C-alpha cells in the first residue's frame, strides 16, 4: 500500500484552497478545496452531480469551460504550478505529465482517424518517433492495457470498437506520455459491470506498475471504494469528509457520507438507488451561512444552520496529531453513523 512506501518529498498533485466560480455573476461552485495525491496513491472524489467534483477535476486538467474560472487557490503538479499556465505551457504538461480518461470514451476520439494514429500522434509530434517506431510503441501500449490483438486494434476506427475497448484505448493514450498523474473522470460510469471491474483492475495495475498518482472522480461510491486509498466526499462545492477509504466506508463521520453509502449499498448492487436522500442540494450561490447539508440532514439541529462549519480533524484522533481524517460536521463527535460492509478490496488496513 502507498502508505507503506516512503513518502516522496512533494506530492504528485497538490490542490490548495481552490475556489471555482461560474458565470458572469461569479457564483462560487467550488469553495476552498484542498487535497494532495502522492505518487502511487489513488484518491477518489465522490459526490452528486453539481457537487463540484467534476469542476475540481477539470480545474486540474485546465479544461474549464468558458465562463468558469479558478478564482483563488493553487494547483501544482509536482513542482509546476498549473494555475495560471499559458496555452503553450499547458501543452507541455498535458499528454506527458498529465493524462486523463473520461466517460463515453468513444466521443473523446476523433471519429475519422484510426485509434492507432491518434495514439501515435503525440509520440510522433512530441517525441519525434519515426512512423515505424511510433507504431511499434503504440502496439506495445495497446497490449499493455490488455487489448487483445493490438495490431488489429491499431488500425480500427473508434466506431469499430466496443465501449470497454475504447476506454482501454483512451487509457493507453493517457499513459503513453508516462504521466505522473492520471485523472479518471467518471471513466467507468457508462460501462457494464463486468467491463467496469476490468477497467478498474487495469487502472489499479497501472498505478502499481508505474507508480501513477490516480485521481478518480465519480458519483458512484462503489467504484472509488474498490480502488482508492483515500476518499474525498463533495457536497455543494465543499469537501465534507476526507479520509482513508476503508475507514470512511466502515465508519463515516459525516451524515451525507452515511447517506451516500446507503444509496450505493456496497456489496449489494441489487439494492442500489432504493434509498434516496430526501431533498436536493442547494443551487450554487444560494446556500445559507451554516452547514450546506443541514436542510436534508436527519441529524441537523439549529446550531448546524447558524454559522459556517469548518473542515476539522475527526476527534478524537486515533493517534495524536493524526490529521488523516477530517469532517465538516459540528456533531461528528456525538453521532454514531452507520458504515457499509467493507468491500473486499479495501480490507487492507491503511
Amino acid at each position, binding site marked *: 500500500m502507498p502508505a507503506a512506501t516512503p513518502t516522496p518529498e512533494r506530492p504528485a498533485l497538490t490542490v490548495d484552497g481552490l475556489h471555482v466560480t461560474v458565470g458572469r455573476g461569479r457564483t462560487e461552485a467550488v469553495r476552498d478545496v484542498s487535497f494532495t495525491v502522492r505518487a502511487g496513491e489513488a484518491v477518489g472524489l465522490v459526490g452528486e452531480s453539481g457537487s463540484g467534483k467534476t469542476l475540481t477535476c477539470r480545474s486540474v486538467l485546465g479544461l474549464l469551460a468558458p465562463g468558469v474560472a479558478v478564482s483563488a487557490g493553487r494547483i501544482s503538479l509536482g513542482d509546476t504550478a498549473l494555475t495560471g499556465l499559458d496555452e503553450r505551457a499547458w501543452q507541455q504538461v498535458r499528454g506527458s505529465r498529465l493524462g486523463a480518461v473520461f466517460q463515453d470514451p*468513444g466521443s473523446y*476520439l*476523433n471519429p475519422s482517424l484510426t485509434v492507432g494514429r491518434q495514439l501515435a500522434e503525440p509520440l510522433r509530434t512530441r517525441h519525434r518517433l519515426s512512423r515505424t517506431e511510433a507504431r511499434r510503441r503504440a502496439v506495445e501500449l495497446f497490449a499493455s492495457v490488455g487489448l487483445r490483438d493490438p495490431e488489429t486494434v491499431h488500425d480500427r476506427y473508434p466506431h469499430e470498437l466496443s465501449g470497454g475497448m475504447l476506454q482501454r484505448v483512451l487509457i493507453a493514450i493517457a499513459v503513453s506520455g508516462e504521466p505522473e498523474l492520471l485523472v479518471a473522470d467518471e471513466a467507468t460510469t457508462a460501462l457494464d459491470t463486468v467491463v467496469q471491474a476490468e477497467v478498474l483492475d487495469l487502472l489499479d495495475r497501472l498505478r502499481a506498475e508505474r507508480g501513477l498518482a490516480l485521481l478518480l472522480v465519480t458519483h458512484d461510491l462503489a467504484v472509488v471504494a474498490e480502488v482508492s486509498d483515500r476518499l474525498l466526499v463533495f457536497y455543494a462545492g465543499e469537501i465534507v469528509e476526507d479520509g482513508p477509504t476503508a475507514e470512511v466506508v466502515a465508519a463515516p463521520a459525516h451524515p451525507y457520507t452515511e447517506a451516500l453509502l446507503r444509496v450505493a449499498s456496497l456489496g449489494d448492487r441489487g439494492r442500489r438507488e432504493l434509498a434516496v436522500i430526501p431533498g436536493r442540494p442547494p443551487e450554487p450561490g444560494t446556500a445559507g451561512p451554516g452547514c450546506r447539508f443541514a436542510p436534508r440532514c436527519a441529524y441537523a439541529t439549529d446550531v448546524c444552520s447558524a454559522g459556517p462549519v469548518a473542515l476539522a480533524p475527526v476527534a478524537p484522533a486515533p493517534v495524536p496529531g493524526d490529521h488523516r481524517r477530517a469532517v465538516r460536521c459540528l456533531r461528528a463527535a456525538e453521532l454514531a453513523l452507520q458504515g457499509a460492509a467493507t468491500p473486499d478490496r479495501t480490507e487492507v488496513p491503511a
Partner: protein
Amino acid sequence: MSTAALPAATAPPAPPPTGRVTAGRFARRAARAPRSAGRVLAGTVSVFLLSSLLTFALGAVSDANPAAAVLGETATPADIARLDHEFGLDRPLPVQFGSWLAHALGGDLGRSWFTTVPVSDSIAAALPVDLSIAGLALLFAVLFGSAAGIGAALSNGGRLDRAVTAVCTVLGTLPAFVLAIGLITVVAVQLRLLPSGGYVPFGQNPSQWLRFATLPALALSLDAAAGIARQLRTSLVGALRENYATGAVMRGLSRRRVLFGHVLRNAAGPAVTVLGMSVPMLIGGAVVTERIFNLPGIAQLSLRAAEQHDVPVIQGTLLVTVAVVLVANLAVDAGLLALNPAARKASSAGAGQR
C-alpha cells in the same frame, strides 16, 4: 455495370460490435453520413434525364420556327417544309427527343438556326471563360471563406467573430451584380487598379487573364465566401466543444494541430455542402456578371440566342449548364465521402461483397 453494385453499395455501415452507448452514437452518425456512391450516381443520372426532358420540352412548346425565323416573311410553305425536314422538326416529338439526347450525349448539340455553327463549338469556345472564372471564384470563396470562418470560430464571441458575422450578413443581401458594380466603381474606375471589363484566355496569357478575371471572380465569390464562413464558423464552434477536441487537447497537441488536424476535418462537411450549393449560384450569377464585365461566356451566348429565338443554342447552353452543376454536385459528394471514413469503409466493404 454500375447498377449491379447498387444494392451492396447502399448497405448500411456495419453496426458497432457492442456497447449501448456507442451503438446509439454511431447510429446517429451513420444517419448523417454522406449518400453512398451508387445512390448518388442513380440520382444524378435521373436528374440529368429529367432536366434534359425539361430542356427539350422548352423547345418543343415554343412556336419559334426556324424556317420562319431564318427565311423571314417571304418564305413559301414548301421552303418551310424543306427546312423543317432539314432540322428534323417534322418527326414525332419522342423521336426528336431521343435523337436529340443521343446526339447531345455524343457531344453533338445541333447547329444554330441562324449561323449554322455547331452549338457544341460555340459552347466549347464560351465554356472555358466561365469555368476558369468560376474556378477562380471558388478558390477565392474557399480561401476567404475558410480564413474568415476559422478566424471567427477561434475568436468565438470576440471582435473578429462579430465583424465576420456582420460582413457576412451584409454580403448575404447583396446580389452578385451589385457587388460587381461596386467593385468596378471602386477598383476599376476610382483606383484604376484593374480593367473594368474584357477577357484574355488563360492559355494565351495567364497574367493578363488574371487581370481580367480577378474582379468578376471576386464579385461572384464573395457571396459563396460569406456562406462558407458562416457555416464553417458554426460547425467549428460546435466541433471545438465536442469531446474529441478535448481528447486531442488532453493528448498535449497544440491548438493549431487540434484545429487543423482534427476539428477542421470533421467540421468541414457542411461547409463543403455549402460550397457545392454555391456552384449553381455562381453560374446563375455569372449571367449578369458576364454582361457587366463584358465576358464572352456561356451566358452571353445564351442571352444572344434568346434574343434571336435560336432554340438549339438555348437548349445546348441549358443542358451543358445542368451537366456542370451535376458534376459539381458529384464532386461535393466525393469530397464528403473522402472526409468521412465510416461511410467510405461501408461503401467499399459493400462493393467488396459483390
